[in-house]
């Protein structure tokens, strides 16, 4: 990656680095994390990478996408660090970087928010459709097919057609947030 991008990335990660600077590498987070087993890099190592300013490595790792926000680490961290928030912030950075690698995660969230913006509330069925289409993975829908059937049988699926128009209130709100966030 080019230096300029690197600098930009480092800037984006700086507030997250501040969150974990006081980490003493005791490993409580990693031993407590229900998803650590699936992570290429334990949470502790992610914090270490952040401390050392290894921004590229953090993003390359991507282990943070496996955080399920259970807050156990946050609760247990002897330094009282906002670790779940740090994970969440990393996800945000990725979302903004639009890194392809995290397509499944980011897209999921983006499509979700699209649904919200449109209706004010989420239409779960609609959003899943949007998500599955956007993933462009022909196998994915099959993965969720059994669930869909079940929901269908319990009359839990909402088959209102996706509305094209937006919810005005939501549009305003989203717009305002965007303005505020991008204000200097």
């Amino acid at each position: 990656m080019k230096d300029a991008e690197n600098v930009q990335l480092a800037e984006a990660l700086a507030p997250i680095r501040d969150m974990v600077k006081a980490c003493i590498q005791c490993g409580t987070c990693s031993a407590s994390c229900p998803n650590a087993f699936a992570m290429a890099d334990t949470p502790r190592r992610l914090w270490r990478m952040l401390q050392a300013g290894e921004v590229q490595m953090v993003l390359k790792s991507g282990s943070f996408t496996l955080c399920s926000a259970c807050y156990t680490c946050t609760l247990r961290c002897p330094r009282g660090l906002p670790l779940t928030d740090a994970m969440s912030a990393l996800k945000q950075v990725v979302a903004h970087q639009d890194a392809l690698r995290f397509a499944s995660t980011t897209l999921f969230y983006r499509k979700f928010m699209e649904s919200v913006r449109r209706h004010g509330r989420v239409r779960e069925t609609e959003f899943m459709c949007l998500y599955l289409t956007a993933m462009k993975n022909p196998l994915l829908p099959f993965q969720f097919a059994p669930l869909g059937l079940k929901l269908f049988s319990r009359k839990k699926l909402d088959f209102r057609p996706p509305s094209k128009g937006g919810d005005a209130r939501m549009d305003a709100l989203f717009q305002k947030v965007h303005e505020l966030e991008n204000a200097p």
Partner: protein
Amino acid sequence: MNPEAGEILVVGGGVSGMQASLELAETGHDVMLVERAPYLGGLVSQLDHQFPSNHCGMCRMLPMLHRDSGEQSCLRKGLRHDRIHIRLSTDVTAVEGEPGNFRVSLRKAASCVDPIQCIGCGACVKVCPVETPDDFNAGLSMRKAIFQAAPFNMLNSYRIDPAACTRCGACVSACPTGAIHLTDADRGAFRILVVDDEQIVRDSTAEWLIEEGFAVEKAASGLQALDLLGRSSYHLMLLDIKMPGMDGVEVLKKAKDIAPGITVIMMTAYATVETAIEAMKSGAVEYLIKPFDPEMLLSMADKHYQAFVEAADEKITAGAIVLTGGAALYDPSGDPRNTLEYGVLPQVVTSLEFERMLSPAGPCKGLLLRADGKPVSRIAWIQCVGSRDLQLGADYCSSICCMISIKEALLAREVSGENLRADIFFTDMRVCGKGFHRYKELAESAGHIRFIRGRVHSAIPEAVSGDLQIRYVSLSGIEKEESYDLIVLAIGQRPHPDMPRLAERYGFSLNASGFAESLPFSPSETHRAGIFMAGSFSGLKDIRESVIQASAAAVNASRTMSVLSKSFPQHLDTKDIPPFPDVSREPSRVLAAICSCDAALDVCMDAASVVQRLRQDPAVQDVLFFNHLCAGQDRESLIQEIRQRHPNRLLTASCASCADIFQEVAVAAGMDPRLSVTADIRMPVLCAMSSSKALDTAAKMQQCADLMNSAISEGLVRVKHADAVKPSETAVTARALVAGAGIAGMTAALAIADHGYPVDVVERSDRVGGNLNWIHHTLDGHDVQPYLEEIRQKVESHPRIQVYTRAQVMGVWGEAGHFYTTVAGPDNSVMQFEHGSVILATGGAEASTSLYGHGTNPAVLTQKELETALHSDALASRELSSVVMIQCVGSREAPRNYCSRVCCQTAVKQALALKSQYPDVRIYVLYRDMMLYGFSESAYTRARREGVVFIPYSLDQKPEVVPAETGACVRVFDPVSDRRLEIETDIVVLATGIVPAFTSDDGDIFGVERDPDRFFMEADAKWRPVDAMKTGVFGCGIVNAPLTISETVASAQAAAMRALRILTRTTLASSRITAVVRHSLCSRCQLCIAACPYQARVLDTEADQIRVNAAMCQGCGACASICPNSAAVVEGFSMPQLFEMIDIAVQ
């Protein structure tokens, strides 16, 4: 001597309190020692074993000189000293006044058992129907409501736990001596108001209290309560917090206006505990969490009732106060998370509980078994429970837990055998005290203790096996699971919950963590003049540090008195003994006087057999029985009897504590007190009665009778052979020599000189100040130079201090009390000094190194060089973008296999300084264990927050430094990210540690050995940390061990205190129990000289005789054991006497 007006008050009877009291008493002060618990010893009384010997050495605190003025026995059994007045179960309730005249109120808790009457037979325990957890065994076992507070503390007899006692009266009728008095007759006069909006709570609470005999009224709302309070008076109010309308806190505030004296306990639900704690600030004393059980409620109510009953205070005055109240231990069950399930799972215990499990006197009788009866074969120690945890408000390290765990692991393997797996889970092993690192390494290599870096958070019980499973992540990120039989939580310390109240009462301030705050550079001084402190009161100390600080506090308290009164301690003379008729040629004629302690001992004494046994020995002239020999009519009649019957020796059988009284009786009757012996017939009775052997009462009584008979026979043998030899004396030269004029030497000199004694300070270099000359500020941010300047001026202007620079001690001859010293001064001059004690404060220096390119690569500096550079222009002109610090350079591995204690603090200090000077500088600290013990942990947190990166390295993967164009490149493996880092850096800073300025020649000159790391070797690492084995020689500052500045100051003050114990006397008399030489028998084989551990023996070649320095001799008997023909004997232990003793023992 007025026991009502203890000259100095010591509050807290733990190790620190006892040490401070002994120091003060031994320098001539009267001491009032107040302890809240019913026994002395504090926390340590619950710990049977101590590093480094892994057994107890508490008695080593006892006076080594003039030992006769105190009792020479196990301190766990009690402390006795002529000048120490002890108040147990007593609280200080008020303090006012100023240094020199503090007026103090003391309040003693009810004990219900008369200690004179109680013979410890335990009949009461048998009949007591109440079982309650035993605090002493950390709640691991049960005890009755009437109980012995500490297992060893015989003299302290039995007590009633008012909270547990149901007042059934069974014990009162079972007591054979009528020693028990229950004081609950007027519970009805104790009025309690219960305020709660919930009727069910209100009613059941009231009902429980009424059943126990209290007078109770109820209120359903705050308004109603206030109304009632306005109309009549109550002693106690139980007040709910969450009530509609006016809430509890508001009611509390208003109630305190209406009835300021009322005691208020808040009742709260889980959700409002914080509010309850808040309410304590508005005057509530305690809180109860709902739902509570009746016992909890009643114990609280009763406690306040007892206070109400016992409200009569004792008033004393004190010139100075030493606070040694200790700290509390962290209670893991108090953490709402409590993921280690302490208190839930029986296999999870605290380190204190584990100590009790290991104790032969503890609940497991020293055997390690699981709750299911299986032997314990795997134990995990989990460090930092309640420490270094910001979420628990503990931004500090408890300092002592690492060593406790290592010790416990070793002990556990000793108890359970080699197959026990002992694993210690840690974040940093903070083994930074003297000898700690070696101990840890030995535990690892020889003890097979596993040290695992990883923080364990929770324990999960396996249903079938009953094992506990834990999960941790190795440094490299591998998840691991292990199973254990037992998990020991290395619990940290907490300030005592009463600290805020104490701070207000005594007027000292608290630090951020809630411990008492000390003055900068003087850890034993509080912010209030005349009030000093020691031990864990100011935070987190092990025994060694506590003992040092207690001595330091004592010297400051004593100095306060000296400075205030402008008079210095009277020279303490040994008691002057008038001449008595010489009876040494007469056959022994013993008068035996037996006391029944106010008839208490009658129940188990067989008078006829006592007389018969005594009469067998022709030396016994008379046997008389008394009821109350220590006072009044009986005492007078004994004097008369002696005058009439003309015995030449007196044997009294009574309590040991009366021995002094009978010596006075002997003198009054014209007898040499050295020919009076007291046989303690009370202790054997207490021992027999409290023995765990299941015997019926008759058998126990018989055993008592036998033991009393033996005790009396032994006393007879002792008195029969007693010798009226006057102990030899050495005249004391009231002047001290201090070698070294660094901060340690100057501090010690000032402390001594302020007591009125001249001090000669000998300094090798050309200026005073030592290492402080190059240190600019401390980790706490205090400026060093103004402090050094202040001390320097005090020393140089002190009329009693003479400093000799460019001078060196060449030889020290003589002995405690009187040394001769030759000093080589500048220009080949030679000076001679005579003095009574010597303090070694020659200090040390930063170790030099050639590692990592130091000396060849200009980018590589030592910490000292960095400190200098930071405060000169050397760095100012440079732009720094990156700094690497390497810790433990040449330290903690052979040949300098010790931790220098201060380097990690220094690294953090420099890192913070660099960060403030160059905000963008990247700093990497490469470390093995960050030794940020105690409150310095918070600086570590700060440094982390500032973005300093800390990377651990191990000995097998040390960092490499390669020179680069500018600066250097440091390669290091980072186990956390599991890869090698290459750090381009401007400078590399090496922490090389401290080496003492103490050569083997110095050792020979001062008669002091060096420890394996070439530091001053103390007589006992824990209990006599600044004493050399050679009496009269002391070592402080970093010649003794690596220390910070304030620790150095404390050790210097401690050394001064120890030296003053010699200087305050005109003569050093030996105690009566010392070794002597029978020259006519002596073959001069000199085995005794080699055997004497105190260097008290020399061969006088001119007289061709072995000479014993009676003051240095401690009467240990090593010489007597090695001497083949009893030419070396310990007085009071002659062979015929011992033979007779053995005869009695084998009878």
